[in-house]
């Protein structure tokens, strides 16, 4: 049954993710007092990329990009199939690693510099990503998603600090300003198009597709904090997911892009303070 849910994600994930990113673009435009693109624009972009000729820089790239997609899907599948959330996160990290390697393999200046930045971003987010899993473990006593959603109370009650820390790195994961240092949706970036600079045509389409999966996966992580055994909580989860996505759009439009030092220090500090503090508190509570 759960496996089926996992496969439903595989099928529906990109649609919902694409829709989320479409909504994001419309909202962004409106926040800038622009009319903005049509809601389904991301799908048009995807279709466009698939129709374009791919100028492949080297053979390795194709493989690495495919790996990127596969591991994002796997990460989502693990989550929806009710499996180990830590593995889901590992899988996510892994997929980013593939993208990074694809950029490295281009052996071109801007791809390379962005790959370095991407790695840096991963170094920024990885502590908190692992912490997410730890947070769920603390609240439910298990890494299994089935156990997490079967709790009496939603995880957010126990681990609000983890949630806050997660919000910070969510900005990084979704490549939103102020932390869009390696690849940005905004046109004018000192890194050109970041890790995707030398990726063309259908390969770029695959990257976009993976991004939708990731979008939806992130949405799901957010919702997971609010889900408990009460079926109504599912609604709360979806609502909060939407709210957080809106918050991300707002943040994107009210911040300049920061330098990497600041990103590193903010990410690590918030992880340490929010998640670490929450962890400490829970540990102390458990001890006394």
């Amino acid at each position, binding site marked *: 049954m759960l496996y089926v849910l996992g496969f439903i994600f595989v099928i529906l994930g990109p649609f919902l993710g694409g829709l989320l990113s479409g909504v994001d673009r419309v*909202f962004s*435009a*409106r*926040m*800038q*007092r*622009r*009319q*903005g693109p049509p809601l389904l624009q991301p799908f048009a972009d995807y279709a466009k990329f698939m129709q374009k000729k791919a100028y492949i820089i080297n053979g390795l790239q194709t493989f690495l990009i495919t790996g990127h997609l596969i591991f994002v899907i796997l990460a989502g599948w693990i989550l929806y199939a009710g499996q180990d959330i830590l593995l889901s996160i590992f899988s996510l990290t892994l997929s980013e690693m593939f993208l990074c390697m694809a950029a490295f393999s281009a052996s071109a200046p801007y791809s390379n510099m962005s790959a370095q930045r991407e790695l840096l971003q991963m170094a920024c987010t990885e502590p908190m990503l692992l912490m997410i899993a730890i947070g769920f473990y603390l609240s439910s006593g298990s890494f299994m998603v089935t156990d997490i959603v079967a709790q009496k109370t939603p995880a957010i009650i126990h681990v609000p600090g983890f949630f806050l820390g997660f919000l910070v790195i969510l900005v990084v994961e979704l490549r939103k300003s102020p932390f869009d240092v390696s690849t940005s949706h905004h046109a004018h970036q000192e890194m050109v198009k970041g890790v995707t600079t030398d990726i063309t045509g259908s390969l770029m389409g695959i990257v976009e597709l993976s991004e939708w999966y990731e979008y939806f996966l992130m949405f799901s992580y957010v919702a997971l904090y609010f889900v408990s055994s009460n079926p109504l909580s599912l609604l709360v989860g979806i609502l909060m997911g939407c709210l957080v996505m809106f918050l991300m759009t*707002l943040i994107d*439009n*009210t911040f300049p892009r920061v330098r990497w030092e600041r990103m590193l220090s903010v990410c690590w500090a918030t992880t340490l303070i929010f998640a670490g503090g929450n962890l400490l508190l829970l540990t102390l509570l458990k001890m006394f």
Partner: protein
Amino acid sequence: MAFLPYVGRTLKNLFSKPATESFPAGERIYPDRYRGHIENDIDKCILCGSCQRNCPSSAIKVNKADFSWEIHPFSCVQCSKCVEVCPVKCLSMVNSFTEPGAEKTSIVNRFSQERIEKEKEKQRLMAEKIAAAKKAAAEKAAAAKAPAQTPAGT
């Protein structure tokens, strides 16, 4: 991340009407002075060539032989110089831009057939006049020379 001064403006923007104009769906009204493209009232034009000489961008070609005035809109920088120098004020700056296109077409304005006829007629008359004048002058010269020449020839 203490105080975010810009959030208010962003949210306000979100709920106000976009500043975007509905071009090309809705028509845009251009200000009167907007320098769009040059039009020639060819009926007034006298093909003097002043515009051609003064155009900084060499966009105008005046072809007297063909009774045509030609402008390359894809060469014209809408400086209005030609409008200023035209002695008969037949040129005007119209406030809508030249349509973009896949070819760099040029616009040729030719005199109407009847005007061409008239011009030709005029030219012919002029030419005749000149020819006549020339002839007259030649005759005069010949006449002046003749007395001197005749004795020499004999």
